[in-house]
């Protein structure tokens, strides 16, 4: 196993530690190690799905082998200044970072870097690890190409490693750029997942027994989820049921019995815990409760009912009607003495498909109010609070404003709630009558 991680530049011991911490990623680690050397490639691009171990592998490698590196998350770097600062900070210390001017440009960064670099030349290759590199595409146009050949620009032995979930083809700028070295991290297989999951076992169980438990767990969840991070969260969420079982049956080898005991719990957990409807903490509590009484805990999406003031309800109903009915039909639906509409050609071709499939359409404020007044039975004065209710519905995200905020003249809205929600409101309204 450790034979894969043999490299002349590093000590045997630290390599062993690395390979212990990187189960099932030896191949990738080996490739990376062979790329990291005295003289290195300017930029490496690593891609693979979420939680396929990209950052973990790099983090462990750089940390254990004590290589100079600057970990940067692109989400965190709201501005390029933060990015530059973090890089300089981790390579040359706080003094260097403070040399950057306010709102620095790329050339400022290169200048400072070169200065510092000449003062403290690199003994080893320096690494800049950029997580979530896909966000670099939204940054300045010159940033990504410059980072890719930073080695040339600063004339230092530095490698930029980009981590992303997206393939390189989606990055390439139209002006062309230096092509980084591409490295793919494949998804874990089922066996590998089991191997990794068995690593964080509860200290009180034997490794073999825990591994068979993980096997059962994977049997249920593997079909819906292959994300390691999600799967890691499951075993301890199920912990209570598991410990209960372990207490009741002493024999640890009886996997068949384990399966029979655990399966119903797992099935139930699939609907709630996996979707994070219920947090793991609550799930645990619920499991403990279940020993005494089977009280069902409702998940987040079970609470969809919203209590609204009377007129807000009608405004929302009116908005729904305005969003899903064509404006031509308003006269027919909301006027008492509407003219006759010829049945032929009443519906245009595209209107024959269900409006619910097409989604809500924008409508002007006037139309909303007109429908509102005809839907509400009593006479409503057009008070300021009716209008403020519309805007508060927008902030509650039950309506969305389509036109720009600045447009005061004729604002347009869309209804953002579903049929079910409206039916529920309508139900309450009928109840009031």
């Amino acid at each position, binding site marked *: 196993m450790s034979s894969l991680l043999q490299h002349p530049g590093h000590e045997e011991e630290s390599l062993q530690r690395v390979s212990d911490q990187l189960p099932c990623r030896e191949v990738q680690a080996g490739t990376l190690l062979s790329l990291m050397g005295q003289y290195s490639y300017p930029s490496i691009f690593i891609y693979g799905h979420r939680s396929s171990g990209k950052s973990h592998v790099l983090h462990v490698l750089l940390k254990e082998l004590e290589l100079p590196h600057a970990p940067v998350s692109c989400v965190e770097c*709201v501005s390029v200044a933060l990015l530059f600062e973090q890089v300089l900070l981790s390579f040359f210390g706080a003094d260097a970072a403070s040399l950057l001017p306010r709102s620095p440009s790329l050339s400022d960064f290169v200048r400072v870097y070169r200065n510092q670099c000449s003062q403290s030349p690199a003994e080893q290759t320096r690494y800049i690890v950029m997580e979530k590199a896909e966000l670099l595409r939204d940054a300045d146009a010159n940033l990504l190409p410059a980072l890719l050949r930073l080695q040339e620009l600063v004339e230092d032995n530095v490698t930029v490693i980009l981590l992303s979930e997206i393939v390189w083809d989606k990055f390439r700028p139209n002006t062309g750029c230096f092509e980084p070295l591409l490295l793919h991290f494949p998804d874990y297989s089922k066996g590998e997942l089991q191997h990794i999951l068995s690593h964080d076992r*509860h200290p009180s169980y034997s490794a073999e027994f825990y591994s068979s438990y993980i096997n059962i767990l994977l049997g249920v969840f593997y079909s819906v989820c292959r994300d390691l991070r999600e799967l890691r969260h499951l075993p301890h969420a199920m912990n209570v049921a598991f410990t209960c079982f372990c207490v009741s049956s002493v024999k640890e080898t009886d996997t068949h019995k384990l399966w029979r005991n655990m399966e119903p719990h797992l099935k139930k957990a699939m609907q709630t815990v996996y979707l994070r409807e219920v947090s793991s903490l609550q799930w645990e509590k619920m499991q403990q409760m279940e020993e005494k009484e089977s009280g069902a805990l409702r998940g987040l999406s079970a609470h969809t009912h*919203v209590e609204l*003031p009377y007129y807000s309800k009608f405004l929302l109903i009116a908005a729904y009607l305005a969003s899903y009915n064509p404006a031509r039909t308003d006269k027919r639906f909301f006027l008492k003495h509407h003219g006759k509409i010829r049945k032929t050609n009443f519906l245009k071709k595209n209107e024959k498909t269900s409006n619910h499939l097409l989604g809500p359409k924008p409508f002007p404020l006037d139309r909303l109010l007109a429908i509102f007044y005809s839907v509400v039975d009593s006479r409503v004065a057009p008070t300021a609070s009716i209008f403020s209710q519309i805007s508060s519905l927008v902030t509650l995200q039950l309506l969305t404003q389509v036109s720009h905020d600045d447009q005061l003249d004729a604002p347009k809205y869309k209804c953002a709630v579903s049929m079910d929600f409206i039916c529920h409101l309508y139900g309450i309204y009928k109840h009031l009558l």
Partner: protein
Amino acid sequence: NLWPSIFQGCFVFKPSAKKKKTALSLDFQQINNHQQNMFCLCKALQDELNRNILDSLLDFTRKCSSTRQHSDWASQMRASEIPTAALVLGVNVPDHDMTFQSLSDLLQQSVTPHVASVQAKECGALKHLMKRVLERLMDTVVDDEDEEEAEQTSAQLNKSVHCSLSTLCAWYNAKTKVSPPGKKRCSHVGDDLQSPPLVIIFKDLEAFNPRVLQDFILICSRYIERLPLMFIFGIATSPSTIQHMLPHSVSSLLCIELFQSLSCTQHLATVIDKLILTPQFPFKLNGKVMQVLISIFLYHDFSVRNFIKGIQLALLEHFHSQPLSVLCCKKKAALLNVMHLGPQDLERIRQLQSFKRYVEKQDPQEQVNLFTDDTHLKEVCQKLIKNLRQYHKNYYPILRCLHTLTSSLPRYPLGKQIRELHLICLDKNIWENEDYQSAMKLLKMLAKDQLILEDMLSKFKQLDSKSDSSTPYFAFTLGYVEDSITSPVKNLQKKTDLFQLQKTLLEMNESRRSKKLSPFEALRNEALEFIDSLVKSHLSAPESQTLNEVCYYTSSATVRRHLNATPRTSIQAALNIPYYYLQNDRLKTEDGIVSNAAPDICIVYKLHLECGRLINLYDWLEAYSTVVSAAEGNDPELMFLSLFSSARFIRAVSELEFLGFIKSTKQKTDHVARLTWGGC
């Protein structure tokens, strides 16, 4: 404090400020007392109502910070999740501020000094959110590139304070290391203090930009191992918004626990119960004002805070507009104030509707005395005020009593909530109401198990203990009713002898056949009659009480105008009757006639009402110049041609367009389209 200054402002411009200075200051102090009492009560109420949820939230934060320090397997596994409390507060957004304020105060007192609350409107972008959070947690100004160059010098000094969580990390480490003595002294309690959590409260989750929130959570999860972060989401609609806003990859970083607060209607019920249905405050609202306030609550905003504001407004208006409100205070002070009343005030009392009605009932000699003798009037007033207080003392217990009886009737003839019953009672004498009569009929038909007497008696007793000693006879009669209701049942149980039982059953049967009432029915009727008599003697409408004007605020129109403004109606009123706002005598006209001297826009508006959907601008201008020239005594022909008048006309038309009455159209040249219907 803002309130006193507001009051002072009111009194400076008071139209009837000719009152004696002593009376004025008295008035002011009184109002202040009133306000303070109400404020204290409201605050206490709010805290009481939120106590449960705040306590559980505090527990949650404590638990979260303590589990971080444990190193057992389960909490280790959960270490990568950010503990999050989803606090569902209902759509009454204006009320939330108070809840969050007391929440953060409590957190700071008992759990952690590091609490930051952010609002959506101040965090448009991730940078701003970050900045706000850092500022509030660290209590410093955070460097920001967007700031003015003028701050360059100060920024140079603490250049390293950059907008990122690593700064926060460094700050937190320094902060926690500063106090090492806590570590040594008490290891158990010290654990809590050692690494207090950093709580971030998102006041209005719905309004946040989802992108910003997602990024922020992603960043925070990177630091969760180094910083004990914690979130509290304030949610107005439903918890499923979390799922709508955050993708699974982000929400899986959170360990969400749900907290549901009381519904706002329950909240309102408590506020009404404690603030209005009590003789504690002499200030009262009449039926219409109550109706306005409650309908604003139910129809428009669900906001308890606005409801209380409405009561405060009514209070202010009452003391401002009613000079006799000096008598609206605690009993002793009121009696004292009566003696200090000036001749003017006494004259006012004589003018009161309720007082006139009272006078009419007296004998002629007394009538003369009341109108001429000031000291006698004062004595009578004292008596009347005592009566009014007694009326209030009896009114509320009887109201509750009636409510307990009728609130469980089918179809709720007298309303489900006590406030509905209260409104009916305020409106007119309740026993004249048809619903009351039907409710009484229903009560008379109820079977024994339906009338669940024990239950009700216990409720009555509760009420009785609440009400003070002024109603001892009430308690006494209740005891009597209780005894007599339970005794036949006891008698029945005693008769264990089979023969005896048969006999009694036969007797009972016979009595039923002969339409004689069973003891239960007789008792029931007796009890109901008793309650009916109570209602009739104590639940009369407040308007029938003498001197009710002193305590009851009646102007519902004012309250409605202030709290539920109608901008369009005001505009139309201004255009139709400019005198209403301008108060210029020249503008006074008969109904529907345009005064020549009215502002141009009013004339143009009146003229446009006579037109159809499309208005010819030329005709309009002609009509306008005819009107205006008549006012100024010029020749219409000349006036029509003058540039000055057409400029005025055009300005007025564009003002109308700005107000949304007309708009330009391409259907016809030189025409504009009307946007409103109707007219002369």
